């Protein structure tokens, strides 16, 4: 998935992410978002670990684009859903829509990193055509990562969470 991708030039800068992460600690904020023109970076302590995997949030989706739209002839293209999330425990979006991590804005999320998950437990909502689709855990396990932010658009195959 690409948003305004072609115009973007931001390759996510690990140091930038690290420094924003430090700011989170220092300020005890839960989220920092900055944008400049087409470029946007967002780090959030609550759902996105300030780690290289943040590179898979749409905020840095341009990177996927940069790989996904090489000139013809080269083979650098990355398929959505194949972006390094092929761990069997990765839960992928079964439909296109907006991902919600909590039932209501401001409320606690359905699940947090570290939670023990029961099979069938509701993990998030994906809204499509005004229908709230509950995304349930396919199997029991421990929630080790959340790849998407609250209210973020997802396409078919977007990696949502990792249950180990």
């Amino acid at each position, binding site marked *: *998935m*690409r948003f305004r*991708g*072609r*115009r973007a030039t931001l390759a996510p800068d690990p140091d930038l992410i690290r420094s924003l992460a430090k700011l989170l600690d220092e300020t005890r904020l839960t989220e920092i978002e900055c944008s400049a023109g087409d470029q946007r970076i967002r780090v959030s302590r609550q759902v996105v670990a300030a780690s290289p995997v943040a590179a898979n949030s749409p905020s840095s989706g341009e990177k996927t684009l940069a790989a*996904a739209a090489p000139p013809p002839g080269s*083979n650098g293209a990355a398929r959505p859903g194949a972006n390094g999330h092929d761990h069997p425990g990765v839960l992928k979006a079964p439909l*296109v829509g907006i991902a919600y991590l909590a039932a209501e804005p401001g409320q606690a999320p359905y699940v947090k990193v570290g939670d023990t998950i029961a099979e069938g437990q509701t993990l998030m909502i994906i809204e499509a*055509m005004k229908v709230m689709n509950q995304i349930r855990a396919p199997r029991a396990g421990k929630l080790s990562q959340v790849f998407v932010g609250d209210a973020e658009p997802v396409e078919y195959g977007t990696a949502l969470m990792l249950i180990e």
Partner: protein
Amino acid sequence: MFEKVLIANRGEIALRIHRACRDMGIKTVAAHSTADANAMNVRLADESVCIGPPPARASYLNIPSILSAATITGADAIHPGIGFLSENADFADMVVEHGFTFIGPTPEHIRMMGDKVRAKAAARELGIPTVPGSPNALADAGTAIESARGIGYPVLLKAAAGGGGRGMKLAHNEADLRMLLPLAQAEAQAAFGDSSVYMERFLDRPRHIEVQLLGDGQGTVVHLGERDCSLQRHHQKILEETPSPGLDPAARERVAQIAVRAMERLGYQSAGTIEFLYQGGEFFFIEMNTRLQVEHTISEAISGIDLVREQLRIAAGEPLGYRQSDIQLRGHAIECRINAENPDDFRPSPGRVSEYHAPGGPGIRVDSGLYQGYEVPPFYDSLVAKLIASGGDRDECLMRLRRAMEEYVIGGIETTIPLHQRLLDNADFRGGDYDIGWLERFLGRNDG
């Protein structure tokens, strides 16, 4: 005008629509299946959304996915392209319900022309001639002979209850008819448990002639001439040309006027095509396509009008802004559909394109999403490129086409280029002497 258009299609036509949008400064969103993540139209699009897995029903026919993709990308209009949802009136309704513009005609017109029976009735009301036939169930030889007089021989007797050739009899005159009616009725009875039989004029060697139309729904309808699409295999068009080598100027003007008058009465809005069978100087309605067509390119070549641009302008509420008299149709144009198929047995030939080099030079247009290293997926139809040649006359056009075929390099997959090269060397084709059955006779296969 729209700021951002979602293209709910794939392949060369998605690329074609992308190009028209870019040429108007409109941003594009490519809605694509996982199988098309590396497609040229996806790479070139401003934005892209994966809408599902390879099977079309789960992606390119997946209405919720497509509408959600339009929502999350903030598109203001959806172009359905060709095939897939392009003639699905319910989809058109839902697009509008969700606050997007559907780039195409009104759902009512899609619905009307989508139903064969309703379409034929509508055509008659709109003054479009249809194949003459009898009301169902010919009571007896007397009735049959009488309606045959009105219809004109040869007539084909058909079982009302079924198809598939059973119960069908061809009568060239009254004697035939007397003899064959009871047989047809008996066969119909045996095959379908219903002996009722009706008749239709039989056309043995018709040409497929279609008229390209543009209506703005604000009182203006124009045509861009006709296209001859008689070269078909299994009802799939292989090569199209305009003008038709089979029409004289009078017939050309007549069919164009029939089509324009009909669309004026209908108040048709968008690009559309009315297809006719043409034989013995008469035109008979086949169907109307309420969408863009693959072969729209040749009408663009002779008219200089970008049909996709016009679709977008009309959908945005703009009037055409010109009349028939402003349109000059110049020269001749031919489109060859290049499929990823074995040129002899037509087995699909998906796979990796190991080399790609498109022809160029004067009078040559290529519409293709192919590039070196691209993988042609096995899930969809096999059209991978359209080579369009235009010239001052048919001969110049044919020569350019032949030359461009020599230059075209598509490695790693089989394509129908060799078939087109054989066609271009064939005397009947070069003479313009072909009908709907010609290609399959040429291919020595009448299983079509």
